[in-house]
């Protein structure tokens, strides 16, 4: 029984969501507001049982790891975020969580710059490698902000734009299939699981 009700609820909500394609309407509004509330409602117990209990409550209260009182108290600072006078308390946990960006400096230099540079330095042994090389350099120069795109230099940077556009077009075309699969999945649910028209 619950399963049938479940399928009906899901089918109703699926159709309500699809109805937005026609226009904004009460069904969509209903689904939207329900979705917003339920998603947050899902999140609260989830965080409580999967984050708060194992990482904050258990170590501190059951294993008596008293050092954790410090982050516990700092973490409570989040709760003052909306207070006008004590809002600054929330900066402490935020600042603590921001500390990790320090790792980003060497890590992105390594992974996103140096490694990429090496792959760009392959010997130009065939036409494709030459094209990749020209494309990469011209796009890099397109993102050079100290010089206006004029004259010959401007022409070269527009080669970069062409490369980017071909790349973007390809990404767009490549993604269509994956998104259509999702749609097919939803339609199979409606036609199969709900109405039993296929299979």
């Amino acid at each position, binding site marked *: 029984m619950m399963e049938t009700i479940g399928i009906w609820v899901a089918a109703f909500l699926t159709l309500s969501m699809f109805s937005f*394609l*026609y226009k904004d309407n009460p069904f969509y509004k209903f689904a939207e507001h329900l979705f917003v509330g339920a998603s947050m409602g899902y999140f609260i117990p989830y965080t409580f049982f999967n984050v708060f209990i194992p990482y904050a409550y258990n170590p501190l209260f059951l294993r008596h790891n008293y050092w954790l009182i410090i982050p516990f108290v700092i973490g409570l600072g989040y709760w003052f975020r909306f207070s006008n006078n004590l809002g600054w308390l929330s900066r402490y946990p935020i600042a603590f969580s921001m500390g990790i960006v320090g790792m980003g400096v060497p890590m992105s230099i390594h992974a996103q710059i140096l490694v990429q540079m090496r792959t760009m330095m392959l010997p130009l042994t065939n036409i494709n490698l030459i094209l990749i090389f020209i494309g990469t350099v011209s796009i890099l120069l397109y993102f050079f902000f100290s010089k206006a795109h004029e004259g010959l230099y401007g022409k070269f940077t527009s080669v970069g734009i062409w490369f980017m556009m071909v790349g973007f077009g390809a990404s767009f075309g490549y993604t*269509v*299939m*994956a998104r*259509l*699969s999702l*749609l*097919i*999945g939803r*339609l*199979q649910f409606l*036609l199969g699981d709900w109405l039993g*028209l*296929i*299979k």
Partner: protein
Amino acid sequence: MNFSDYIQKIDRRYIFIILAIAVILPLLFPLGLPTFTTPPVLSLYKHIDEAAGTDDRAVFMDFAQSPSTLPELYPMDLAILRHCFLRDIKVLTISYYPQGAAIMQMAISEVKEDFPDVKQDVDYCNFGFRNFALRVPITLGMGDNIAEAVETNAAGRRLENLPIMEKLKNYDNIQVCMEISGAAPGIIYINYARARYGVDVAIGVTAVSAADNYPYLQTGQLVGLLGGLKGAAEYEELVETFANNDIPYSEKKAQNLSWRNQQYELSKVPYKFKQARIGMDAQAVAHVLIIIFIIIGNIGYFIEKRQDKNKYVK
């Protein structure tokens, strides 16, 4: 409002409804569009087909699947099993995931319905579920002796007493090691079975992870790859044209399109054996539709531009 205006300003909702119909119709009424086989799929098919009719070669399948990847991977399971049953190829199956074992059972029983002559432990053998921790020991042990490494089938019978295992001793008797997986597939077979015993390894994966596995194809560590619904559809089609008529794959026949189309009578096949192609039908129709949309939109745009130009000249 002239034609170009009309085209330019056409309401999105018409596009939506056309797309919806274009996807729904092929789902309800299969079109049977031709499928073109790509090298990785063809190579796998040929490799498996090589074992047809022999009793000392078998296909080994590892089901590393979960229900969430069912839509993409399940058609592969069915297609490969059907291929083997049609062409009298021995199949050994195993799963190291409890949920994968359930899918394995489901796939075998679903395909077997159409093959009353195919017998368990004679034509195929289901090794059942094994603990994940045993994966490496079993994979390695099979290089020496399958029956000793795996010990029993799903029903608990000792392998050495089963008719199917009579001539299947070790990896020398394994035609292809096929892993169908929703996660990172094949690595264990590439690293152990392929590197040490030179077994041919192939994988079936979701479309998303297919791109990550192409390098293995290029280095030859994989002999075949089925990627997502498309790969499954291609395999289904090969099974339909060749295995279903009990003939081996031949390049000449494959290139003869009219002959192929003769073989390709989609309607006679039960839904389960064409689900990938039906999905791909819907995909193809939708892709073409979107391209048509782009072209129509551009026609409208060019007409308008020309009219604007004319206006300007006047």
